[in-house]
């Protein structure tokens, strides 16, 4: 029973560490994500114009 509890805790912590490590890797190197959404974003931002009535 105690071994089962320990095993579960070990597996849980190990998986959590693996996932966090993936996220840290992505955060440190996220230029490798090739999403074209980023390009869309800059097209959208470059279309932006101020909406003021103040001179």
């Amino acid at each position, binding site marked *: 029973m105690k071994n089962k509890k320990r095993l579960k805790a070990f597996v849980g912590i190990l998986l959590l560490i693996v996932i966090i490590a993936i*996220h*840290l890797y992505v955060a*440190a190197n996220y230029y490798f994500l090739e*999403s074209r*959404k980023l390009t869309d974003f800059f097209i959208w931002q470059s279309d932006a*114009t101020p909406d003021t009535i103040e001179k």
Partner: protein
Amino acid sequence: MRNIPFSKTYLTHVFGLSLAVCAIYWPVYQFSFLYGWDDQWFVTNHYTEGGFGLSNLWEILSTFHYGQYAPLNQLYYTLLYTFFGYDPFYFHIASVCLHLANVLLVYSFLSRIVPKLRMNEAIIQKRAPFFSALFFAILPINVEPVAWVSASKVLIYTLFYLLALLTYCKYLTLSEKPSYYYLTLFFFTLSFGAKEQAVVLPACLLLLDWLYGRNLKSHYVLLEKLPFLVLGLLYGITTIQSQGLVDNRSFYSLYERIFLGAYTLMEYYTKSILPVNLSFLYPFPFVSGETIPWWLWIHVLAIPIILYCFYKYLKRHWVFFGLSFFLFHIGLVINFFSLARHSVIADRYAYVSTIGISLIIAISVENLLRKIRNRKLVNVVVVIYLGILMVYSSSHVFVWRSTHALKKRLKTTIEQRADFSELKKYKL
């Protein structure tokens, strides 16, 4: 804490929290508006300059602005402009004041909640609300809504959201006094007036009902939530209508959204506790129709296994409350529902949900201090961790000082991307 509102401990905690906020955010007084990053339409617009005349007020309340419905936030800009004009100093100082108010409200809210978490140790009841609020105050992921004027809607929504939670706690403790119930409804409406994320309040109220030991199967308890649900539904429809005005770019399929949802959830969690390379823009991990990267499969498989492994731990009141609070508030923005965004996550969306994580971390540390022999070591580690968070936040604030600084930051981060040359033509 409510019985000793002006005790020495209370005043020391309030002073400590105020000091932490000021220490991180003092440089914002010299920051400008980000005219290349949404401030050019959210802040400087004809509604802001239109004053408090009836026609302008009606326009603010009845129209969507760039796919958003946030009339209270717009009124806030109008108010600041009426007194100070377009002086970024006052807009930034107001944002810091709102953040400080939120930190103190978090402290007040958790002071009421922690005694209900079935932990008898007086020291935990006394210290956990303070350390949770401190953690919330200094988290680097919470810098974005404070240092960026256009994100003030997050701060205003949180202010009224926390007031709604506090008045609901009062309602539960003061023999269900109706005035507090109506106040909760009122603050809920104001909170939605600033940001649509407030629609999850009914779920959060049920969480408080559970914590206060109310019978969740009771018709009265459920009927009580009906006005909140009706309002939430109306607010939800308003949000969908406002979002409909924005062109819907390539949407991901339900199958793809399962992977995106799992990835986004863990991304918010990791970025909250281990802030590495925070940005104002995060690329999607894959484009709709492309092969899903192998490392995203790990998320979908691992999250249920982790939950199974920690099932017993999750049943503890404080873990369940903190985790549910985090999930309720982050659930709307994990890309499972809405995808009309350019960035897979945004730091500001995690603002309220970090309260749940802060609570779990604060109580975990307190529990560790009780159990472990080498308390000195734990104290040293905690002080170093808090120090790192403060230093990170203090430097991250400067990313938001001008449009140039903001884009320069992104440019240095993504210049190794394959499509970087393509991005350059958009004046990055």
